[in-house]
């Protein structure tokens, strides 16, 4: 279970939010919405431990994530604004390298299946990533969701640059994840098509 207690965040001289309390239970997804600049990405980065909060703490199963350090990192998959894709590697190499580094190595076939699941066909797997479109690169990153066994998923605007079909595929994958007891926090501008009992909304006014 992920819990934020009294979180406040300041970027530069602006206080984005203060005294934020929210709980994400296993099997649910928290959708963080709000205007641009309201602190959604900062909140997600605080959850990922990349950004320390100005005040307050984040608890994972009751323990402060900054005490847990690498133990907490091993519980999550974080896909931020930046894709983490190396332009000189192929999608296949990128995916296998990313999962292997994260501690969840996959087989060649496993990676290929993940790429196909998100709509990237076989011929694309061996092209250098620099020739891919923005949407295709985003999909290479999202393919990690098919290979991740981590309980907590933190996704920053995963549906950006995706067409309707791919959005549906990713939503299905999210549903499967929460049905297995996983948690997810999403920053998104779009409505997430999940059943109401598995969905929470948090609106930041900024």
């Amino acid at each position: 279970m992920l819990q934020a207690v009294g979180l406040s965040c300041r970027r530069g001289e602006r206080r984005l939010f203060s005294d934020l309390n929210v709980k994400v239970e296993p099997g649910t997804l928290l959708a963080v919405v709000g205007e641009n600049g309201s602190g959604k990405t900062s909140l997600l980065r605080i959850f990922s431990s990349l950004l320390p909060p100005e005040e307050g703490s984040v608890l994972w199963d009751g323990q402060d994530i900054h005490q847990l350090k690498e133990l907490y990192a091993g519980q999550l998959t974080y896909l931020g604004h930046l894709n983490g894709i190396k332009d000189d590697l192929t999608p296949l190499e990128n995916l296998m390298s990313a999962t292997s580094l994260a501690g969840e190595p996959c087989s060649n076939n496993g990676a290929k299946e993940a790429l196909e699941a998100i709509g990237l066909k076989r011929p694309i797997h061996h092209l250098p990533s620099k020739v891919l479109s923005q949407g295709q690169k985003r999909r290479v990153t999202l393919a990690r969701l098919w290979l991740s066994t981590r309980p907590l998923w933190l996704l920053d605007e995963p549906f950006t640059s995706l067409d309707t079909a791919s959005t549906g595929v990713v939503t299905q994958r999210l549903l499967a994840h929460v049905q297995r007891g996983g948690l997810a926090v999403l920053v998104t501008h779009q409505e997430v098509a999940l059943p109401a009992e598995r969905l929470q909304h948090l609106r930041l006014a900024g």
Partner: protein
Amino acid sequence: MTVNWSKYSAPTAFYPLAGRLIPWFSVMAVALMGVGLYMGFFVAPTDFQQGESYRIIFVHVPAAWMSMFLYVVMAIWAGVGMGLNARLSFMMAQAIAPTGAMFTFLALLTGAMWGKPTWGAWWVWDARLTSELILLFQYAGVMLLRTSIDDLRRADRSSAVFALVGVVNVPIIYYSVQWWNTLHQGASVSMSTGSKMAATMLMAMLIMTIAFWLYSIAVILARVRCIVVERDSLPVWDEKPAVSQEVVEVR
């Protein structure tokens, strides 16, 4: 009367305390500097080998000591700031750097003034002078990191990391004269073996060192007050923005 020191860790509480202390330190500093300079320039005996020109050491040696002490103190404040995440610690480190740099420059300048009549050259690349020059660059690096980075928190922490990394250089400067047999005098004032200099010379140097310490404390406290004003009165948008949670029933 017990003093609750921890309440002074907030910059706004520290400000008036610093203000009350500055006049004391300034007056004592000026007084001691007067005494020390008088002793050094008029009372201490003429050196057998170097004549009158040696008298510059009464400024040079205390300035060099201060440059090293202040760097270590700055690094300690940097470390405390990183460990406790205390803004005042970072402000103290920020306040110390310019004074430390000034003493380093003074040590180099007076070293050159001493070197010309003694060794015949304005500058020699011996171990201690070179490492003192490196110390000046390190101070410059600490200050430059701070001014180049816009985000205050990142500026604080980056220059703290750099200050801590550079602390390795300080013992190297201190021991460099022993490790390399170079032009510089061996440490003629050491704690354990007693000194080789006449007692009045030693006394004058120690007085000057204490005077420089007091001066540093006064100047640093004044600078910290400026920094507190500059940083704490920045317009922070403190209205608590609304956070609304539409928690749809989680069954």
